[in-house]
């Protein structure tokens, strides 16, 4: 049952909350998330070793100096990119970033599995990027911390935490590391391209 008090309470709560309007843009949201991760790099125990895809996306945007991907003017219209990375190349839109499953940050000197796997980097509907061995066999990968993928002119690109493209869709690569209990490859270090 709604009475007059409830209506007035609702209005007062709205006034209270609206005294601090939310005015963050998309890049603010990404930066804030990345800043939280920087403050608490080991504070996300959920999902085992998996870091959430958004962390990779946010880290990607920040590490590339993408700044504003787009902004919204006061009338609500979407504006174009407002900043570029230091190299001057156009900033990829958020929609071009593809989430990858990534590992937690690896402490310096932590032991690595020493096996290796070769395969072709392929687009994977669930994981973003995976390795294909032979014609059919697909090996899923949990990429090193900070890695992400983005859509490039010739397909997906695998980018490390420094913003460097390490491989492209269709490349043959070698990954050191080993499988976890679920049969997912856990690379130790980045990929090596095979010519």
């Amino acid at each position, binding site marked *: 049952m709604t009475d007059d*008090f*409830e209506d*007035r*309470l*609702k*209005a*007062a*709560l*709205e*006034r*209270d*909350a*609206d*005294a*601090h*309007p*939310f005015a*963050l*843009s*998309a890049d*603010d*949201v*990404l930066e*804030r*998330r990345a800043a*939280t991760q920087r403050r608490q790099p080991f504070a996300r125990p959920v999902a085992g070793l998996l870091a*959430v*895809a*958004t962390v990779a996306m*946010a880290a990607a945007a920040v590490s590339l100096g993408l700044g504003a*991907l*787009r*902004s*919204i003017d006061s009338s*609500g219209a*979407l504006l174009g990119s407002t900043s570029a990375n230091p190299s001057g190349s156009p900033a990829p*839109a*958020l*929609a071009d970033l593809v*989430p990858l499953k990534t590992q937690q940050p690896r402490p310096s000197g932590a032991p690595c599995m020493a096996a290796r796997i070769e395969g072709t980097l392929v687009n994977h509907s669930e994981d973003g990027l995976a390795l294909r061995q032979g014609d059919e066999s697909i090996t899923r990968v949990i990429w090193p911390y900070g890695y992400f993928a983005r859509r490039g002119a010739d397909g997906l690109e695998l980018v490390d935490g420094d913003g460097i493209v390490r491989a492209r869709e269709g490349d043959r690569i070698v990954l050191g590391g080993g499988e976890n209990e679920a049969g997912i490859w856990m690379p130790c270090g980045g990929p090596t391209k095979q010519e």
Partner: protein
Amino acid sequence: MSLASDREPSVSIARMLKDRSPGALEALILAHGQSIHRVAYSIVGDFHAAEDITSETLLTAWRRIDSLRDDGRIRPWLLSIAARNALQHLRQRTPRGNVVDALDGTEQMEARTVSRLTVRAAMEQLPDRMRAVITLRYLADLSVDEISRVIGRSRNTVKTELRLGLQRLREQLAEEDLKGVER
């Protein structure tokens, strides 16, 4: 925001998110950012924490949009995520003082006369979960069933929390406290 209450734009935004369309995150913020922030702020009572919670909620939506079954229900879905994040924040925080105590002298004087601070102070007196229930009912317009799922308690518990919360707020808030303040 009008966008948030119209089913058609909500469907469009959900579709944009699912398609990873350019500008989807911006459209989401434009349509629902303030509503999410309202709920987060009302529960945690801290503007900066509410911004963090809102950002987290928006990115969670971006990440998990495929779990939204009815695109037209994106608003309650978002506000539910925001409420869970806000409650999680409260569980992790260090104990804090009363909101009015935390204000400086000038603001304390205003707190006695400005209704929004009075409402805030009254809300601060409620237990966290009760404050969340009140927020979800009156700011987010969620149903008892929806609130029940968000806080993980039975419908009867939600009804009880609502009744007791309203009763306490009635006792604390004088008639003039709820009158509008010209801005």
